[in-house]
């Protein structure tokens, strides 16, 4: 009689636990509409310049070979608006108008840097040159 009561108690407990588990709230939000990621793309033109400015800061060759032609073109275009050109400027005029460092970089026939290990143009220095160009 005691054994039967024990068995009944265990079975009742098992049924109660099972019913409890079955009644647990079902997890919601099991599905979602698929959504493609929203893209944000920076122009390759800008990324290239970011790379160039970074490399020109440490490598004088990069600054001479890649940054200089760009600064020359920008200077030419901005000077042309006021009827001037880099080719016709004397060293004194160029240095006065563009500042020593920028003029040294964009002056015509600038020789290839002899010291290949020399540092390039730091971003802070480049920012100062750009300020001059923006003011032209």
């Amino acid at each position: 009689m005691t054994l039967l009561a024990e068995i009944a108690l265990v079975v009742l407990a098992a049924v109660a636990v099972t019913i409890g588990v079955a009644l647990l709230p079902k997890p919601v939000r099991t599905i979602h509409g698929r959504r493609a990621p929203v893209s944000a793309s920076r122009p390759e033109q800008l990324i290239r310049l970011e790379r160039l400015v970074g490399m020109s800061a440490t490598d004088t060759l990069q600054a001479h070979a890649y940054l200089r032609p760009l600064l020359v073109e920008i200077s030419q275009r901005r000077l042309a608006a006021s009827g001037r050109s880099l080719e016709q400027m004397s060293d004194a005029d160029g240095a006065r108008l563009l500042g020593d460092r920028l003029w040294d970089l964009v002056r015509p026939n600038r020789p290839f840097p002899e010291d290949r290990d020399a540092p390039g143009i730091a971003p802070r220095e480049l920012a100062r040159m750009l300020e001059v160009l923006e003011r032209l």
Partner: protein
Amino acid sequence: MNTSLSPRVAGLLTVAGTGAVAGLATGRPELVVLATPFLLLVAAGLALAVPPRLVIELELTRERLLEGDQTRVTATIRNEHDSGLELELALERSARLAVEPAEPIMLRLGPREQTSVEFTAAPLRWGVHTVGPLALSTRDPLGITLARARLGAQLTLRVFPREQQLRQLVAPSRTQPFVGSHVARGRGDGIEFADLRPFTSGDRVRQVNWRASARRQTLYVTERHPEHASDVVLLLDTFAEARAGATGTLDAAVRATATLARAHLARRDRVALVDFGATLQWLGPAFGTTQLYRIVDALLASEIAFSYAWRAVESIPRRVLPPAALILAVTALLDERSVRLVSELRRRGADVTVVEVSPLDYTPPGHGLTDAAAYRLWRLEREAIRARLQSLGIGVAVWDEKSALGPALEEVNAFRRSARHVLSA
């Protein structure tokens, strides 16, 4: 339907297994008895699970929209089974299509019952969008199995770009011998006064300017400029774009192209379209409303695709670039290939104008000294590119989407008037 076991099955089996092992280890059968109902629950769940039979129909209230509009999507769900079921459903959405409600909807369907659910689809930009299918999920009554499916048709929703009103267009430097709305440079029948000249044999009496003739005591005739149509080629650059989230330069460029196409066709010009990018697509020049629909339809498929392919002027079929056509290149000037193309067209004597969709609004400056300097350099480089194009006689209208296109085109007209000697070269 893709059926799988619900995550709770693992828990039930773990409890049952633990009970059975503990019962064996300790030699107490009560533990095994305690574990058995869990197994029975899983078994009952598997036995009761029948694959749901559902019929889904999706319907759009409107299949064609203008940007900014939205449409209702009605989903009709019919339970073909003799037992009821509980459903969670959501409408598939994409980065360019917002759907309301975005969260899954819970639904209970009785046996053979049918119900309808309404969603709102709001496209974020122009294009051909796909609406649907429905993502569904349902469980058996005991929550042991989980059935998932994507049901219902994929509906196509065409969203046309919103256009601006244009009063002023780029005046073509040369016109075609068709009747149109542009004042031609030549002399002929028209309204616009051109000049006075002495009467010669063959002149019609109605051309005689009696006031001038009376003053000069000899017959003078009035010459007029005829109104002619022009050929306009819209060149859409799809090489590269700047994008910030759901908007980008291509979106704006397509809107500008559609605006220009409608405005020129309304003035009885022949308009052609060239989608110039990784893939080259074109529509030959034609007049009228049909051409407008063709152009807008072609624009909806415009996409930026990455490519290293170099494209020159020769890759554009000759019949798409009629002689003496006005070429309006709508570009963000972000790719050297586009800059080269418009320069090359100009060098070959074409009348080219660039509508530059400014990428600055979509590209914030980076952080740090290097990125800030690069950003300033980029702006200066873009100015230099613009100056290079202008030195060739190409008018550049810089336009950002927040402003009207008309004033930008008016600036180009002013440039073209001052650079007429270059343009006529």
